């Protein structure tokens, strides 16, 4: 049993490592596959992305090392990545690593809170909707979830912003904390939470639909099973029937979807942050796109891919641990 689990775990680790290698190869290939010299614009005074500072120009050139043969470039690139060197930002004139350290925690906070909230809410709502299937409350939940899923994240974010920060000025318009305010620890945490309400609300809404539909579908197919009839005949209370007997069936597929949604949440967070000027990766990306700051954009992709792959790997290992069927072919 334990052997089988180990084998399944090793296989997952291998697959995800392979995926990360593919990601690195893509990031390495892109600037080199484009026709001409992608960095030519940096030396051209007539171009909008012209870099005035010769030191920065040299640093960027050295980072890409485009004058060397390809295998040497790749070796050089991977070596730098392994040492945690993600390059030098053209526009911000700072090492990319320090920029990421400043921005990544905010995105992780926003994503983490939203994924947890959306998971809890969609599970409870899914179970409740199954129990009242076909009735008005079930149908309105279904329609609402479909709408929230169809509308893009930045639209949800803008609607929340207009409703609760402009028309009803309850929450702050932008940012992650009040600037220049000297809070104590407790007031500081509350301030961050207060600024997080609308962005996390928008991201949570956009993550609800898929999980809700999944829980509803798996539960509905479980309802007809013999053990449900038996449990009901034993006179068990509804709460136990709902969560212990029927809801349990939805747990495993639910875990898989949470993993898939980690990737989706990364994209959602980028858009939501742009609307609220939230100081996470989204704002970093927005500024970097405007300045065509290639090293920053490549690094954000690498790091966000690493986060998503790590989440998926952990979930897959948990899955293999709790699902008795994995590895027992």
């Amino acid at each position: 049993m334990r052997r089988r689990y180990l084998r399944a775990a090793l296989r997952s680790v291998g697959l995800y490592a392979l995926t990360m290698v593919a990601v690195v190869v893509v990031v390495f290939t892109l600037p080199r596959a484009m026709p001409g010299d992608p960095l030519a614009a940096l030396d051209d005074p007539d171009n909008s992305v012209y870099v005035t500072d010769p030191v920065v120009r040299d640093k960027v050139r050295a980072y890409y090392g485009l004058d060397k043969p390809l295998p040497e470039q790749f070796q050089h690139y991977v070596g730098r990545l392994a040492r945690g060197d993600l390059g030098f930002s053209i526009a911000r004139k700072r090492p990319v690593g320090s920029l990421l350290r400043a921005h990544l925690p905010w995105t992780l906070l926003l994503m983490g809170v939203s994924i947890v909230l959306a998971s809890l809410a969609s599970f409870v709502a899914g179970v409740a909707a199954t129990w009242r299937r076909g009735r008005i409350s079930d149908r309105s939940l279904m329609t609402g979830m479909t709408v929230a899923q169809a509308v893009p994240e930045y639209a949800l974010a803008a609607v929340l912003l207009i409703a609760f920060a402009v028309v009803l000025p309850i929450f702050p318009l932008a940012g992650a904390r009040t600037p220049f305010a000297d809070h104590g620890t407790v007031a500081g945490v509350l301030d961050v939470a207060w600024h997080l309400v609308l962005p996390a609300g928008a991201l949570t809404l956009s993550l609800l639909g898929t999980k809700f539909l999944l829980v509803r579908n798996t539960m509905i197919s479980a309802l007809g099973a013999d053990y449900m009839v038996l449990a009901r005949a034993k006179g068990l209370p509804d709460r136990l029937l709902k969560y212990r007997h029927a809801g349990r069936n939805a747990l495993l597929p639910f875990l898989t979807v949470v993993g898939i949604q980690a990737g989706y949440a990364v994209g959602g967070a980028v858009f939501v942050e742009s609307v609220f000027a939230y100081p996470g990766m989204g704002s970093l990306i927005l500024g970097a796109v405007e300045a065509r700051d290639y090293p920053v954009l490549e690094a954000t992709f690498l790091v966000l891919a690493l986060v998503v792959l790590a989440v998926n790997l952990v979930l897959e290992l948990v899955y293999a641990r709790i699902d008795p069927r994995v590895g027992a072919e």
Partner: protein
Amino acid sequence: MARPAGRLRERRRGLQFPVIGWVGLVLVAVFVGLALAAPWLSHYRTTELAGSPLEPPSAAHWLGTNGVGQDLASQILNGARVSLFVAVLAGGGTLLIGALVGMVAGWAGGVVDAILMRIVDLVLVVPKVPLLIVIGTYAGPSLPVISLIIALTGWPPTARVVRSQVLSLRRRAHIKAAVGFGASSRQILRRHILPEVALILSAGLVGAAGRAIAFEAGLAFLGLGDPSRASWGAILRDANAFGGLFFTDAWKWWLVPPLVAVSLLLLGVTFLGVGLEQRINPRLTRHTGP
């Protein structure tokens, strides 16, 4: 009261297409109409400085003007063209790659199938938005290029659905008979498998088109759109980047219309997709239980 409802239900059963699908179809049709009529409906070029900045809606400017005085109604109408162009091009491309990979994987089986499905897993797990952003900055901001990269990163879900369909089809008697008569794989895929997966592909096309619309608008919102075309995402970006937007009333005619447009079109596409799915596979909605 009872009779019209009864007749409606009868008609619904006759057409076999749920109400939600019709709602979606009408919404999409409205946008297609607006996009086709855009050259006659819009009175200004999208880049033209047609009025003074931040003019509220009037007879001359139906949706007012933006921060530099461009006519927003013309931009929204042109945005519909951009969105639908990308929907067709990127949606079609996604479908083409997805169907091809799915059919080959499902039919060939064995090592080919295993390798293709690993590639599917690999593309699926990589976060799409950051990937599109990196490719988008290098590939440049033309609409066909944007459509191409959306298609190149968006095909795996379609491939999976088609593959599972082909896997169940290849066990059927008429396919086995075709194999027995010595038909080549290409012939079987084209003459027997393709017609049977066509219905599923139509639902797949709608889904892919919706995702393409959302991604194009998102990329333009982040500043990666075609700067010579007024896309809804680009209007949103300009409004969002305008300092002090919410200290004036301008958000009402600058920020809200593109949001409403992109949301309504995506809702239409989604509803159409739900309708098609229910039509193809009614078991999805009709469950029986205690």
